[in-house]
């Protein structure tokens, strides 16, 4: 008896030339790596080099890869060949989700890898790997067909190292679906964690811009029988108890009613003149006399502590 491990039998001499013993992994990987079907899928300039890779001079069929399938359901390999834009990444993620496992992604060219020459563009995604996992990156702008073929060979080698026991898509807890991004004011991922993160940053920025904002006199209409001073709040809500509005050098003074709060982004209008009228809670009447001089005047807004918050001048002087 030979010293084979338990459970293994020796191959009889006469069968040896007819039988090849191998591992499941080897056969499985060999079959898979030499019949990778790419998806017919071109995004930009790089796609032309991908097409050319399929033609006579470069002849992709040497690698068993000439069967380009237009349907993602039948394809094993997605070659992201070109600039990925925000508008296009939505269908790309959807296509990726539709591909059956095992599936592979080659990021072809500078654009697909990191945005390339167009990275700073407002509609360009900085690399497809921000959205879907990539197996092989092929550098170049565009990569020559030779470079792409090198990418194929690299992918083949990668596949050959995989094992059925460890590949993710046979695991029980494997999901494999990527949340499809949404085009809002700008693209955002629908992954809940990411959405929360985006919202938190946006809220922080809102608060910061609010804190930097302030109450100020935005406008003064002195003509007509209804004179109006518009005071606008671009910051946080402001209690205006004790605040005053002065005309000129402080000859006439308007006192804000106690408890009056100016909300963010809201405005309060102080009316004066014969037709002054309080139409809404944010319209306050100063007096039915005219306040503002036509030839020029200054309005000053003063807070409860007596500090000048904002001034507004118009006319000659």
């Amino acid at each position, binding site marked *: 008896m030979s010293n084979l491990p338990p459970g293994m039998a020796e191959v009889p001499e006469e069968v040896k030339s007819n039988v090849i013993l191998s591992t499941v992994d080897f056969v499985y990987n060999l079959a898979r790596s030499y019949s990778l079907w790419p998806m017919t899928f071109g995004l*930009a300039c790089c796609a032309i080099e991908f097409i050319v890779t399929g033609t006579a001079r470069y002849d992709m069929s040497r690698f068993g890869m000439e069967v380009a399938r237009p349907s993602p359901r039948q394809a094993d390999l997605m070659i992201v060949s070109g600039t990925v834009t925000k508008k296009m990444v939505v269908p790309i993620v959807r296509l990726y989700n539709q591909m059956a496992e095992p599936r592979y992604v080659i990021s072809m060219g500078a654009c697909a890898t990191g*945005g390339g020459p167009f990275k700073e563009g407002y509609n360009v995604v900085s690399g497809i790997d921000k959205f879907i996992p990539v197996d092989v990156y092929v550098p170049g702008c*565009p990569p020559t067909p030779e470079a792409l073929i090198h990418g194929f060979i690299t992918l083949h080698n990668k596949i050959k190292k995989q094992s059925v026991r460890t590949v993710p898509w046979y695991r029980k807890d494997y999901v494999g679906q990527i949340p499809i991004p949404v085009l809002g004011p700008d693209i955002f991922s*629908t992954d809940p964690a990411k959405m929360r993160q985006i*919202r938190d940053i946006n809220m922080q920025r809102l608060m910061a811009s609010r804190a930097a904002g302030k109450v100020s006199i935005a406008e003064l209409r002195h003509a007509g029988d209804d004179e109006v001073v518009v005071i606008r709040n671009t910051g946080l809500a402001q209690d205006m108890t004790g605040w005053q509005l002065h005309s000129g050098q402080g000859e006439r003074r308007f006192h804000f009613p106690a408890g009056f709060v100016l909300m963010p982004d809201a405005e309060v209008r102080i009316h004066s003149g014969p037709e002054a009228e309080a139409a809404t809670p944010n319209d306050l009447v100063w007096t039915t006399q005219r306040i503002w001089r036509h030839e020029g005047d200054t309005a000053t807004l003063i807070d409860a502590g007596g500090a000048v918050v904002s001034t507004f001048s118009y006319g000659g002087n």
Partner: protein
Amino acid sequence: MSDAQSATSLPYQDAVPGAVLAVEKGLLDDSLIVAPDKLVPLATYLRDHEGYDMLSNLTAVDYLKFKGRTKADRFEVVYHLYSTRRGGRPKVLKVRLPEDNPVAPSLISVYPGANLQEREAWDLYGIRFTGHPNLRRILLWEGFNGHPMRKDWLEPYYEADVKPFKSRHPDGYHAWAEDRNPWGDNVRYPDGFDPETWQSPVQTVPLPRHGGNGVPGAIKTERLVVNMGPQHPSTHGVFRMVVELDGETVTALEPEMGYLHRNHEKIGERNTYLMNMPYTDRLDYLSSMSNNLAYAIAVEKLLGDEYKPPERAEYLRVIMAELTRIVNHLFSVGTFLNDLGAFFTPLLYTVRERELILDLFEAASGSRMMCNYMRFGGVARDVPDGWLDQCRQLVYERLPAKIDELDRYLTGNEIVQQRCVGVGYLSPEDAIALSCTGPQLRGSGVPYDIRKAEPYSIYDRFDFSVVAFDGCDVYSRYLVRIEEMRESIKILKQALKQIPEGPIQGGKGGYTVRPPVGDVYSRIEAPKGELGFYLVSDGTGNPYRYRVRPPSFINLTALAPMCIGNKVADSVIILGAIDIVLGEVDR
């Protein structure tokens, strides 16, 4: 601009009183400043009485940071009108619009070709065109935050207004753009935006509704809306058509684009003039040399005579441009046959010849596709030894035989004829009105070729004819491409015979050019049609406005009219015969 001009000395006062507010002196062409409300009558007059039958280019400029401009005339819509009969320089109309609520009248009623270009101006600049039947965003999506080409709209990775950025030059320090952006990615949201509550505005593409088939007693049928693309093998990239069908007949079609909108123009305004050269390669990436040529000529026009290229460079340019035309048409014919169903085999034949020309490009420029070969006032480098002989061998022996071979296999083929003859009809009048150019226009029997109509470079020296076929169908467009390759060979033979020795770079060369203040529209006959560049210079080393007039984008205006009434399978070859390249359509 001369405000002092008395009203009587202004042009067109008799025809359309009050239309022209002023005449602005330009570097090449004077432009008429037109009152917005008189634009349509003036354009109608120019079209009907002065022969300006084609609206070639329509674009907008934001003069926010330009010297001498105020809020009252911040925006400007520029129109370039040409005459397809006379050729020559354009009539330039400009409409100035204020900062708040910029509204211009739509020119669709006069020039239907304004359709897509007005939508683009709305999308990127937020200029409304009253009377436009379908003023939707075209390159971006509904709901996008702002109008990105405005000068005060900053992209998420914004660093500085113009290059070279301080972070790179002269003492570069390294910082990822992602790290400078709070979201760590190429995005920006309005403050306080909450993704969870986002409701997308309606995105569905509106299709013009036609009444029922109207025949009393006919079978009641239902219209079916089919979406093709953006991932569809027939759309030559990421293009989308929404087709409404009655049975198999197309009753309405709406093109959707922008899936490859990579902000060429915004990036172009940040770049220096020379930095844009490699970007032009990536417009119509099948014919980068032509794009280089168009851009180089445009900047040279801005720079003046000093940058006139020397003889040898002019010849090299023409040789490259004509080789590019052959490359493009070979590829276009191959993919067109693909669309017809002859999957891949014809393409294998055409790509084989294309490869040989690409070898020449690679030897001359260092790259197969993205040549980046032309410079202002010349070309980047001379061709290597033996290059011209290799080129001669190709031009004299191989290519003519191979074009004949293609012709023999395809042109008379019964299936090709059955599928193509009479499909996608576009009358010559419509073709001009819809601003079509290139093989699409010449396939409608209009012999309009910018190499003859307004010769540039040294095209006036060569003997060649303008190919036109008057079938007005897909087949004629195919024939035009085959014949144009032969004409290109003719030009190449002459150029290869005449090419002199000598320098290849005129002007001062150097990296930075600073053209004088002014604007220029310059165009060439690219393989796909009229490729124009509209450049506005503010006297600095960066273009203030950098606009590309992409032929295949504007040729797409005719897609819906050509497809309606045909079968849905034909819409695929009609699109194929327009010969679009998405890099150029979406930019």
